[in-house]
Structures are given as C-alpha cells and as structure tokens.
C-alpha cells in the first residue's frame, strides 16, 4: 500500500515528463493553443494516476491543519501521544489515506506534476514561473523541473532503500535533510498497517487514565542510599514485583486502575498489606458502608447493630465475628432488617456464648499446664541429684581400680627384669667355658702335629741311607746314554755333510748343464734345507742374485757365443770421440771396418786390445778373467757390453757361492772328526 502510494506519484511524474517532450518540440503557439485541451488529453491515458492524485490533493487541503503537527514533532515510533490525535473511530480505509497525502507532501516532487500542464491551475505553492517567455525561459524551467524531479526521485529512492538496508538507513537519516523524519513516518505507517489492534488497545488504556497516574517522588533510581522504610513505601513499584518484573502484576494493576477508586489507586505505591491489616481494612470499609447506609436509610429502617466483642481471643472466633458482621451489613443494606432481627439476635447470643466457652477452655488448659510444669520441674531436680551421686561413686571406683592396676604392672616389670638379668649371667658363663675348651683343643692339635713331624724325620733318614746307592747306579747309566748320544751326533753330522755334498752336486749340475739356462731353484732350496743351521751356507745362498736361480745362468759356451756378437758391435763404437754425434758415429762405423785385428794377449788399453784379450781368456775357459777385461771398457763400448757383463757376473757369483758351500761342507766334516 505504502509502496504503491510512493510509486504512484513517481509514475505520474514520469508520464508527465514523457508527455512534456513532444510538447517542447512543437511550436510555442500550438502548445499554447493546446493547453486548454490538454487537461482531458492528459487525464485520459493515465486515469488511475489522476484519480490517485486527485483525492490526495483534496486531503491536503482538508487535513492540512491536522497533518501539520505530526511531521515537525520528532517523536519516536512508539510514542503514544500521536495515537489520540488520530480519530479513534476512523476506519482503516480512511487511516490509509492520510499517509498518501503526507507522502505526497513530503516528497516535493509530488505537487509539481499537475502544475506544468495546467499553468492556469490555482496552485500557489509552485514557484516555477509560467511559461510565457521564449526558448530561454523554457530552458530554465525545464532545468528547474528536471532538477526537482531528480531530487524528488532520489529522495524517494533513498527512503525506499533506507527501509531495505540498515546501513543506508543510518546514512540517509544522518546526512539527508528531512530524511530522518520521512523515514520515521514511513516506518510508523508500516507498523500501524501491520498491527492496527495493538495501537487501538494502547489508546483505549491510556486515554481516560493518563492524567491520574502519579509517580511518587522517591520512585526510580536516586542517588540516595537505600532506606528500608523508604523501600517499604516505594516498594510497590521498586521491590515487590513491579511492572518490569511480571506482566501479570501489570495486568492486575491495570485492572485496578480501570476499576479503582482514587483511594485504591494509591495501592501501586504501597506494599501489599499483611492479611490482618487487609482484613481490618475490609472491616473498616464495611463499617464505612454501614455508616453510609445508616445515614442514607435512617429514616425508614431499623438497623441491626453489628456484633461487638471486646475480648476476642481466638482467631477463628474473630473470623466468625467478621462474617457475622458482614452478614449484618448485608441485611442492613437489603432493607429487610426486621425480618432477620430475631435470627441475628440468636446468632449473636450464640456467638457470645461460644466466645465465653472458648475463653473458659483456654483458661483451664493454662492452669493444667502450669501444674504439670511444676511437677516436671521437681522430678527433674531429683533426677539430677541422683545422677550427681552416681557419677561421684563411679569416679572413686575408677581411681581404686587404676591404682591396683598400676601396682600389678610394677610387679610384673620387676619380675621380667630379674629374669633377664639371670639370663644374661648364664650366657656369659657359657661363653667363658666355651673359650676355655677351645684353647685346650688347640693345644692338643699342636702336640699331635709335633709328634708326626718327628716320626717323618726319622723315616726320611732311614730311607736316604738306602737310596744313596741307587743314585750312583742311575748316574752311571746316564753317562752311558750320554756317550751313546754323542756317537749318534757324530753319525748325524756325517750324514748331514753327505747330504750337503749331494745337494751341492745337484746345484752344480743344474747350472752347468750345457744345453740352455735353466732354473735351479729347487736344488738350491734342498741345499738350504739340508744345511739349515749353517750360517756360512745361508750367507752364500743369500749372496746369489735371485735372478740367477729363478731364470738360470747362461753356460760358458753361451757366453762365448754372445761375446762374438758383442765384440762386433763394440768394435763399431771403438773409435768414437768423447761426445759424438751422428757424424762421429758414422765415422767410427766406417773406420772400424778398416782396423787391423790383434791376436793373443795383446798389450794396451784400447778397445781392440781389450776385446782380443777377453776372447783369448774365454777360449781358455777363464770366465773370471774375461769379465775383468771387459770391465775395463769405457763409454759406448762399455754400454754395449753391459748385458754380457751382467750374465758373466751372474755365472761367476753362482760358481763362487757353490765353491764356498763346498768348502764349508768339507770343513764341517773335518770339524766333526776333530771334535771326537
């Protein structure tokens, strides 16, 4: 409804604007001519908008005075003051119409649309000047209109949006002028539309009573410290279940307010009185009414006097009196007191009698209780006396008993002490006896040992005398065996030397084999085995180059053969100068061809002489001398003869070692014979 009303004017404005553009295109005259016929033309297509706007305008005029106050007064939504201003009898249809008017009034765009098409309309509030000028005026007017329209539209949009989102609501109410008012109003309309009953109820409640509610001065929060008396007085609202504590109470209070007299209206402030007080109050009220009644009806009726008991002790009786009194008052009111007079009287006498009887019973009961109390007191006193004496006797008995126990305990302790002492003495005696016995035993053992030693000594002496001869016999046997072993040694040594000789022969045969060099490692190993402990043999074997017995040594014939080849080469290099180059070598090679050969044991240190001598020695079989000759060579000649020399030396070493070993073997055999 509200939205519709907000959209209605906007649509109307839009239509008007749309309509105005073709008008602007037309010429000024034609527009002026058309203006009179414009009204029906404009209203026809937008009939609903026109109808909506029409009544709004009229209501503005009529309810201008009534609607003016609420908008400026910035009252919150729940403020009930606004409620009575609206007529309560107004139907919902009429209630909805004012918002339309107010909305249309709140948005400044609303009143503008009807004016431009009808310049002759009587709307005085429009500030836009009538379009009498030429194009310039038109333009200005258009600008103003569009501006207002846009402003209005944006304002309406803002209002609408602020209803939707809280953030925008805050912004809108804060910064836009009149924004808060309008939004508040719209919200209020919404609320009223939703809950029409709630508002009417509040209104009904508040209307007649509002002036009579008085809030006491001390109610609410004050700076004062709490005073109990104050609290009692003001507790009606503050402590004893105020309206904020329970809704029921408020309802009751509301009822009281609705019903109540001015005297009872004060109950709000006061604490609910205790029952007796209340009853008294009621009584008072009854009396009051009775008085009133008497004053009112004194002339024609005989009244029954109320029951008046001066000494009423029992609450039941009291209640009964009250009931009777109320009945009496009722009867008095009813105006037929005479008829009930007798009954009442009898009732009263009955009541009196009852009261007296109750009093008598009470007094008799009191007396009986007093007597009983006295009796009891006496009884208790005698009992206490008896108890005291009993306790004293018991204490004395206890003392006697304890003393006896103490004596008995002491005797027992003394007896146990004596017994322990005796035990201790016994034990010490026993220990001493044991020690003495032990000493005796030791002495006996020692004597026995001495005796045995003596006997052994004697036996030994006897034995030695006989065994002396046996010892001599064994000595002679030992000597014999020694002799025999010595002979055995000699035989062993002989055997060994023989073995050495055999092994030596084997080695010699191995290295002197004429065919080709062959290793004689096994033979040498056997020789070493046979002469294991002989240092000379070991040293001789160690002096041999390992290469010799691993590969074998060349035989003398092989050496001679190789010497011939070596001699050729050496002769080639025989004439070389000290530091010869290619030319020197070539010269030496050429010139060596023309050298004369020497024969026999030639004299001289030159290469040719040495070679000749060596050859002669070799022919004689003297390898040792040949090697010595060759060792005299120098330079290239020595270099060329190096391998031959090495081989010769190997052979010589082996020969020497073998000779040494043979000499050693001979020496050994001789030594053995010399020893024995």
């Amino acid at each position, binding site marked *: 409804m509200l939205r519709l009303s907000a959209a209605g004017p906007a649509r109307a404005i839009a239509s008007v604007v749309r309509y105005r553009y073709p008008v602007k295109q037309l010429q000024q005259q034609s527009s002026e001519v058309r203006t009179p016929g414009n009204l029906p033309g404009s209203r026809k297509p937008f009939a609903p908008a026109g109808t909506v706007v029409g009544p709004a305008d009229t209501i503005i005029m009529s309810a201008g005075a009534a609607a003016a106050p609420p908008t400026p007064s910035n009252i919150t939504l729940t403020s009930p003051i606004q409620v009575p201003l609206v007529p309560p009898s107004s139907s919902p249809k009429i209630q909805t119409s004012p918002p339309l008017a107010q909305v249309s009034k709140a948005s400044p765009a609303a009143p503008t649309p009807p004016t431009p098409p009808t310049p002759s309309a009587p709307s005085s509030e429009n500030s836009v000047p009538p379009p009498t000028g030429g194009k310039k005026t038109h333009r200005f007017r258009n600008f103003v209109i569009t501006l207002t329209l846009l402003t209005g539209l944006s304002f309406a949009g803002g209002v609408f949006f602020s209803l939707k989102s809280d953030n925008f609501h805050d912004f809108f109410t804060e910064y836009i002028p009149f924004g808060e008012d309008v939004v508040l109003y719209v919200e209020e309309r919404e609320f009223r539309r939703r809950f029409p009953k709630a508002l009417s109820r509040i209104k009904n409640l508040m209307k007649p009573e509002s002036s009579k509610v008085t809030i006491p001065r001390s109610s609410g929060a004050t700076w004062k410290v709490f005073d109990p008396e104050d609290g009692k007085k003001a507790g009606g609202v503050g402590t004893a279940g105020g309206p904020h504590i329970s809704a029921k109470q408020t309802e009751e209070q509301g009822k009281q307010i609705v019903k109540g007299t001015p005297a009872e209206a004060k109950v709000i402030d006061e604490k609910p009185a205790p029952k007796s007080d209340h009853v008294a109050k009621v009584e008072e009220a009854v009396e009051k009414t009775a008085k009133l009644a008497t004053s009112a009806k004194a002339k024609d009726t005989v009244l029954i006097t109320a029951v008046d008991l001066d000494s009423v002790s029992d609450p039941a009786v009291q209640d009964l009196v009250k009931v009777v009194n109320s009945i009496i008052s009722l009867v008095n009111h009813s105006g037929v007191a005479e008829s009930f007079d007798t009954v009442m009287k009898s009732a009263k006498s009955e009541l009196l009698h009852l009261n007296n009887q109750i009093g008598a019973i009470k007094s008799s009961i009191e007396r009986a209780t007093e007597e009983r109390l006295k009796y009891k007191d006496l009884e208790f006193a005698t009992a206490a006396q008896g108890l005291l004496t009993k306790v004293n006797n018991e204490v004395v008995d206890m003392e006697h008993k304890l003393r006896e126990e103490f004596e008995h305990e002491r005797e027992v302790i003394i007896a146990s002490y004596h017994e322990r002492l005796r035990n201790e003495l016994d034990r010490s005696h026993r220990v001493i006896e044991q020690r003495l016995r032990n000493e005796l035993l030791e002495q006996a053992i020692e004597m026995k040992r001495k005796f045995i030693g003596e006997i052994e000594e004697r036996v030994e002496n006897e034995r030695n005398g006989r065994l002396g001869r046996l010892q001599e016999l064994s000595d002679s046997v030992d000597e014999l065996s020694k002799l025999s072993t010595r002979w055995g040694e000699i035989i062993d040594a002989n055997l060994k030397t023989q073995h050495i000789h055999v092994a030596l022969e084997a080695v010699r045969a191995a290295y002197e084999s004429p065919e080709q060099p062959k*290793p004689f490692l096994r033979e040498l190993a056997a020789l070493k085995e046979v002469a294991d402990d002989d240092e000379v043999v070991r040293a001789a074997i160690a002096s041999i180059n390992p290469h010799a017995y*691993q*590969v074998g040594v060349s035989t003398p014939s092989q050496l001679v053969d190789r010497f011939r*080849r*070596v001699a*050729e*080469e*050496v002769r*080639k*290099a025989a004439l*070389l100068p*000290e*530091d*010869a*180059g*290619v*030319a*020197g*070598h070539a010269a030496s090679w050429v010139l060596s061809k023309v050298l004369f050969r020497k024969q026999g044991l030639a004299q001289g240190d030159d290469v040719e002489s040495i070679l000749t001598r060596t050859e002669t020695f070799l022919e004689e079989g003297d390898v040792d001398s040949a090697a010595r000759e060759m060792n005299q060579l*120098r*330079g*290239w000649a*020595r*270099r*060329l*003869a*190096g*391998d*031959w020399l*090495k081989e010769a030396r190997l052979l010589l070493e082996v020969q020497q070692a073998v000779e040494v070993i043979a000499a050693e073997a001979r020496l050994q055999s001789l030594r053995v014979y010399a020893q024995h």
Partner: protein
Amino acid sequence: MSSTASATEVIKRSRPASEGLLNEKWDHCLANLLVKSTLGAGFGIIFSVLLFKRRAFPAWVGLGFGAGRGYAECDREFKGAAGGVRKSVGERLQRS
C-alpha cells in the same frame, strides 16, 4: 717353469740387448730423416706450386729444412745417449 720362462721373455722384450742399442738408434735416425725430408720437400713443392709459379728452389729449400731437422734430432739423440754426456747418465753407466 713355464711361468718363469715367460717372465724372462717379457724382460727380454721390454729391454733390448745392450749390444743392439746403437743399431736401434741408427734405424730411428734414418727413418726420422727420411720422413722429415719428405715432409719438407712436400711443403716446398706445395709452396712452389701455390706461390712461386712452379720454380724448383722452394722444393729444394723444403727438402733441406726437413733433412736438417732430422739430422739435428738424430745428433741430439746420439749425444744424449752417450756415456759421460750428462752427469746422471754417466753415473748410471758407471754403476752398471
């Protein structure tokens, strides 16, 4: 036995006999001389063809250079190998 024989074979092969030392050197020298002179002559011929319009002298010059180079290397080898040329070599020869 066989293993020791093979060992001697290896030793003999690795180190030539001392009496063949000079002959070996001569072989090396002559081969080197031939290769060097051939190379020099070849370069000389190429140069003569490319640069000197097929004159004869560049070939001869190249040959001469190659032969000279071979001779120099040979000479150095003979001199270096000779006993007493260098101290270390001399000592070694003395020892052996």
